[in-house]
């Protein structure tokens, strides 16, 4: 029975994915491109070379965190659309820590200080929506989404203002961080974040399926009324889990500036927060599937750049494919709802 349900769910997923790819093919045809060539070029540019693959992994790192930032609250029945904002605040906090501790800070202090500050920033940005939700005053879907736009402006405010590097007069950006804050790389641009991301996935799985809190999260998410009647702490769990999600998104932001950029600039995120949302929903908020779906989305996102070069398509074209994937998710949820 269970196996049967899993099999048919898998078939449904595969069918819907194929549908999305087919629709995108039609779109490519209307703009005079051969869909097979396009898909081929997309795959070649990402999976066809060691460099391409490493770029996919670089893209995947923040996505693992931002997807978890959506998945944990989702297990509780909460919709966290605020990954993008939490990521920005995390980066801002981490940058502030790095700039205030100074360039001479040693690695044993700088790395954890940056990471903790980043997580704190993300959690802080999630706290207000979490509190309002736990009081029953405001739906977290709306509040987290709207705060994304505020977060971008907050980062701008500091990068154009107090944190701006006076030495780079034409470019709004902070000073470069000291070497003690920079995340070590494995090869090329692939950095220690991938290990942290995989660790976070594993810890999330352990938390959800082995620990008492995971049980409580799944119980509340499954039926808040029954959980409340049996004494489970709804408000405290809501705040804790949404803030934990924020902290993970904050860590994604920290990784981007500490491993890739080396300093904080406005608009440093390539929609990592939103793509994480897409991944988590594609993956049904399951940690292991987040790895699979995260890889898929990272391939598409990375390949988008090559489409511009190889096929003369705007790199935003792949956003259409992403949107189609989101529809796939919605269709699947609707199908299950019957």
């Amino acid at each position, binding site marked *: 029975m269970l196996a049967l349900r899993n099999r048919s769910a898998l078939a449904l997923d595969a069918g819907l994915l194929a549908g999305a790819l087919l629709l995108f093919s039609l779109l490519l045809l209307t703009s005079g491109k051969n869909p097979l060539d396009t898909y081929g070029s997309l795959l070649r540019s990402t999976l066809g070379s060691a460099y391409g693959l490493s770029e996919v992994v670089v893209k995947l790192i923040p996505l693992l965190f931002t997807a978890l930032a959506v998945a944990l609250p989702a297990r509780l029945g909460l919709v966290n659309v605020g990954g993008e904002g939490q990521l920005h605040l995390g980066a801002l906090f981490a940058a502030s820590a790095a700039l205030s501790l100074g360039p001479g800070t040693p690695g044993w202090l700088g790395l954890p200080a940056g990471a903790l500050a980043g997580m704190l920033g993300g959690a802080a940005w999630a706290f207000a929506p979490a509190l309002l939700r736990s009081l029953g005053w405001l739906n977290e879907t709306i509040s987290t989404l709207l705060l994304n736009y505020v977060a971008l402006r907050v980062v701008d405010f500091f990068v154009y203002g107090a944190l701006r590097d006076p030495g780079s007069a034409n470019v709004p950006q902070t000073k470069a961080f000291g070497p003690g804050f920079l995340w070590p790389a494995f090869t090329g641009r692939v950095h220690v974040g991938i290990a942290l991301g995989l660790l976070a996935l594993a810890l999330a799985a352990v938390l959800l399926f082995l*620990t*008492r809190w995971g049980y409580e999260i*799944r119980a509340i998410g499954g*039926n808040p*009324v*029954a959980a409340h*009647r*049996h*004494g*489970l702490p709804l408000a405290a769990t809501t705040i804790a889990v949404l803030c934990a999600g924020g902290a993970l998104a904050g860590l994604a932001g920290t990784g981007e500036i500490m491993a890739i950029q080396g300093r904080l600039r406005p608009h440093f995120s390539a929609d990592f927060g939103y793509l994480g949302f897409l991944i988590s929903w594609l993956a049904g908020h399951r940690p292991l599937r987040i790895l699979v779906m995260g890889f898929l989305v990272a391939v598409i996102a990375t390949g988008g750049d090559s489409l511009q070069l190889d096929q003369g398509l705007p790199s935003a074209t792949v956003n259409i494919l992403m949107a189609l994937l989101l529809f796939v998710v919605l269709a699947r949820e609707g199908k299950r709802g019957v």
Partner: protein
Amino acid sequence: MPSASRGELLLETRGLTKVFGALRANDGVDLRIHAAEVHAVLGENGAGKSTLMKMLYGYYHPTSGEIFVGGKPVRLGSPRHGRAHGIGMVFQNFTLIPALEVWENIALFLDKRPLEREGLLERIREVSRAYRLDLDPRALVRELPFGTRQKVEIVKVLLTGARILIFDEPTSVLAPHEAEALFTIFDELRGRGYAVVFITHKLAEVLRCADRITVLRRGRVAKSLPAGEATKEGLASLLVGEAGATDPEAIPRRRAGTSLPSGLRPVLRFDRVSCTTDDGRPGLTGLDLAVHPGEVLGVAAVSGNGQEYLGDLVLGLRPVTEGRILLGGEPFDPSPVAALARGVACIPEDPLGMGAIPGLSVRENLILGAHRPYWNAGGFVPDRGRLEAAARTALTTAFVQAPPSLEALAEDLSGGNLHRVLIARELSRNPIALISYYLTRGLDLSNARAARELVLAHAARGMGLLFISEDLDELFTLCDRILVLHAGRSRGIFRPVETSPRDVGLLMTGADHARAA
């Protein structure tokens, strides 16, 4: 209005079979529905009643077998086809839009919408008059009790021109007097040549209103017989098979008239308790009650008369505005955590909606609320051995045979089985007081009997039981005392031997002249 002559064969199925995966929900079902007939389809939970009706209505497609309407084979591809062939389903709830008026709900449902408002209003009033439904087409559905909403559903189906009306467990949401009113409507419909198909698992109702009875067991027709030839005992043995043939509906009777040892401190006491409804009107007013150790205190009330607040008040889900609640003689600050800690358990009105976590396993559902001891090291390491043992023990008390797998997800269990899992859970904490709402509602015969025996066994060991029910037979046989609630006030507490179901029934409906015992 249908002009079918009495006895005309309206609908027939031959060898109707529906297979879901490994489950044969219906297996070669032959059914003959005649005009001017109330045809009861009787079966235990999971016997395949609903599957059969959904095929007749066009919601499911048969795996094999045929359906004939008026002698011609038909293929019912969707409910729309079902309606086109004059087959209508009267739903229980959830198909009406609460924010709309009665006539608007009906207008939405009709396939063709040639009617302007006045015409439709007139037709609703006409049908309502003809069948003595007493329905106001301009009423807001939100404000109607379930019994009246059901009448809206009936009018809806009648206006589509249906000749066969299918009622799926229509009395499960009704108070006793509403159910009686429904059977009167059945009589009206029969008199006008409609066929009524009535699905239920309640023997008394079948014998009260049916002309013909088809008993389903494990997806097959066990027997189809005229109501005149049916007896309660005969139907019961058809329902549950040979093994359970010894009068499964018999309610275990309490030792009649036992007097409680005086001086025992009540395990649960309401001391002049008042509360308000969601919109600020009085919910309960100055209610006094006391449940003693080992006592079964019944609460007889028609739904919506304040009994729904009893459990919520003890769980702290609704504030006590006046008075106080005492547990074991001590004042108590109500909250879910405090209630659990002090040994109060509750089986709520809607046990599946308010008690079960659908996506969790039976095992995980069994520990809800008392789950902390099953993790070591501060919550990080699950103690699987203890959990397994505790879950098994809880289940074996509630299921004499064939308990569900501990791994099964709650959402995959049948309603009756899940209900029993939840009863097992609440009792596994050995509560000092159990607040039980409609313990056997929706349970089939064998499950209902098991549930009653289980709570009585715990009462015999000293648990106080607050037993809220609308079933007077059940209240009179199970309870030591019965409290009658009407409009949020106590109308007296009676010993069953000192009063009669008729008197209690009158008090429940607010009649003042009933003799107080």
